[in-house]
């Protein structure tokens, strides 16, 4: 009997938690439309972009012979539905091409903030994280979501 009671008790206690956990991602889900970087951060990212990325990805981020555009429909489609963590890690793992990982996490985050600004995602009050795990909580949505009711 004690065991049964314990199990029932556990169910009573855990069920709401499970529900809460199931709801949490939706409730706290953020997207690139929620102001996930600051203007100052994008300003910091701009010269780094031009120094480290522009030679291949283009002055206007339109891509070049050896590198894809970082703006426009193809860029948006490539990352739509993924997370900022995915995009950040792609940069961390492979860029700059000759020496991947040479830039600091902060520099990578600043470049990413600049890219978001160029792609007309709104700036906000908090800087873009530089931790991949935290960035995975921000979804990259190419189209602006409908206003929450």
């Amino acid at each position, binding site marked *: 009997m004690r065991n049964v009671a314990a199990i029932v008790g556990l169910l009573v206690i855990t069920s709401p938690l499970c529900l809460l956990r199931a709801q949490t991602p939706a409730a706290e889900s953020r997207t690139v439309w929620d102001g996930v970087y600051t*203007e*100052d951060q*994008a*300003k*910091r*990212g*701009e*010269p*780094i972009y*031009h*120094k*480290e990325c*522009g*030679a*291949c990805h283009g*002055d*206007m*981020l*339109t*891509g*070049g*012979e*050896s590198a*894809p555009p970082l*703006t*426009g*429909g*193809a860029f*948006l*489609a*490539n*990352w*739509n*539905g*993924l997370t900022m963590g*995915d*995009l950040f890690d*792609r940069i961390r*793992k*492979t860029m*700059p*091409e*000759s*020496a*991947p990982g*040479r*830039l600091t996490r902060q*520099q990578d985050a600043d470049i990413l*903030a*600049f890219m978001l*600004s*160029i*792609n*007309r995602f709104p700036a906000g009050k908090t800087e873009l994280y530089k931790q991949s795990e935290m960035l995975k909580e921000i979804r990259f949505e*190419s*189209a602006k979501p409908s206003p929450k009711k």
Partner: protein
Amino acid sequence: MREKNPKRLHALLLLFFDGFLCWPAAAPAQFRPKDTEWPSYAADLAGTRYRRLDQINASNFSDLEIAWRIKTDNFGDRPEYKLEGTPLMVNGVLYATAGSRRAVIALDPATGELLWIHGEHEGKRGGAAPRQLSGRGLAYWSDGKEERILYVTPGFRLICLDAKTGVRIPSFGNTGEVDLKLDDDQDIFPDLITGEIGIQSAPVVAKDTVIIGAAFREGMTPRSMRNNKGYVRGFDVRSGKRLWIFHTIPKQGEFGYDTWEKGSAEYTGNTGVWTQITVDEQLGLVYLPVESPTSDFYGGHRPGNNLFGETLVCVDLKTGELKWHFQLVHHPLWDMDISSAPILADITVAGKTVKAVAQPSKQGFLYVFDRVTGKPIWPIPERPVEVGNVPGEWYSPTQPIPTKPEAYSRNGVSIDDLIDFTPALRERAKEIASKFHLGPVYTPPAVSKLEGPLGTLTMGTASGGTNWPGGSYDPETHNVYVYACNSCIEPIGLVPAPKEVSDLNYVAGTAGKEVEILHGPGENAGADSPKPPQKRPGSGYVPMNIDGLPLVKPPYGTITAINLDKGDFVWQIAHGETPDVVRNSEILKGVNIPRTGQETYNIGTLVTKTLVIAGEGHVTTTADHPRGAMLRAYDKATGKEVGAVYMPAPQTGSPMTYMVNGKQYIVVAVSGGPYSGEYIAYTLPSTGE
């Protein structure tokens, strides 16, 4: 300065697999690849990308399933997201370059089983290479007994392997390698480790000669008007000995030297052949598509026409001696490298058989010549073009413009080209375009000014039209099939270069932006210290899209079938699903938009007995398929789509096909965005026997 004892990833795997391999019991007396194989990068030395196979056809293309797949992540110290290779399949083995180390892998073509792997650890020399990653492929050679694989490492060393084992051939060059930074009629500067020169294309082997070109960094903002030169060389496939060299920038006393005024041939560099080379073995002629000189968009330091920049050059296979040439662009200013393999075609013009060569281009012209004489099949007269006013620049007053075939993709920008789905979108596009100088093909770059123009808005230049994948040719119909980006906008502005940035007077840039020292791939120098921000992010930045929508109207990318007997289009279609950003646009709800094709520059085609096959360059997410791209098949006679099969990522390497054990396979390289490189082999489902 030469590297010593580079580590090698030799094939321990071979110890495990060698015993299971079934090599041919007796090699044929003389090597003749079967027409069911794919023995060189473009199927053959003529650059056709054609195989007369028909097991996979219109009735079953959509039934294709994955026979095998291989991720390339572990063939290097990091994943690669730009896998551009086309494998070879010959004598029952599939060979490919793969991974960020540009390893060579040998696979069972029916199962994908890894037979051997070879990689070269090049240390700093590899890290400093101007063209990194896995490259486009490799070359196969056999005399009927011995089989060899040849490829060039990122660090510009020609490696010769035993095709059976993946082990270097010791008698070739220096223990299986030729250092391509040596014996090049120039001293590669500043040193052999960091000296800028390399290549990403596949070598070509014709008869017993290996032919190698050269590539450099992107040339928009070079540090200097001086650079290494991209000569082309032929090597003996048995010994590795240099047989000949062709100076793509003539030396003093050689033909063409006087097209470089004020001695500029002495210091100007680049002008390599970075794309695929084509050979007519019977005629003993080699066709070299030469790229731009230093720098891409400013030629004030190299007055003159600049032979052999952006010139189709024909040389002798045995000697490298110049046979004929045709400069497609005089005094290049638009980065219109000749970017793809010349295509050899035996055609019938006005009742006469002609051995022709057809050259696709970034500028959307298909230049067609008699490949023996170099004489144009249809007239290519010199036409007056706009002369610009960039200080110090030298302009050619005319450019050669083909009368036939007509341009198969856009090569200029006019208001009429701008997006017109709605009047409001057209107005926004006009506002963007108003900041630039517009004009037809060969409208020159402009100095970027805040008050305007910010530059010249171009198409059919650096990344337009047909780029490195080139076209295909069907010897049955005498049609060339060629993909082209019809919407790859390139704003070209020039800004004065500060002395600490470059010794050129002008480099590519936009007014209002601080000119930065641009680091291209391969430059891993020093710690970086970003300058303090002084302006708003993106100041001077003008988007080349409208809320993600392309600035110009569809079609964004096309495949065109051009009949070479007549010089006329047979058909032209938009290639690729309409991009998500267009299909899902709120602004465009209710607007009927036929399939637009896609804006990309790296789509290669494959031609079979009945089909033209090409994958998409972008991912889409539609009701029919999850995020992914489609490999599409078209009826080669009509251009009508007859089937499609899902790929998890865009096509980034051109497809190839072969038969093995009675089954036809199609292999394609996919990668991009978050998806690392993968070769995928498709075949038809088992019949259940």
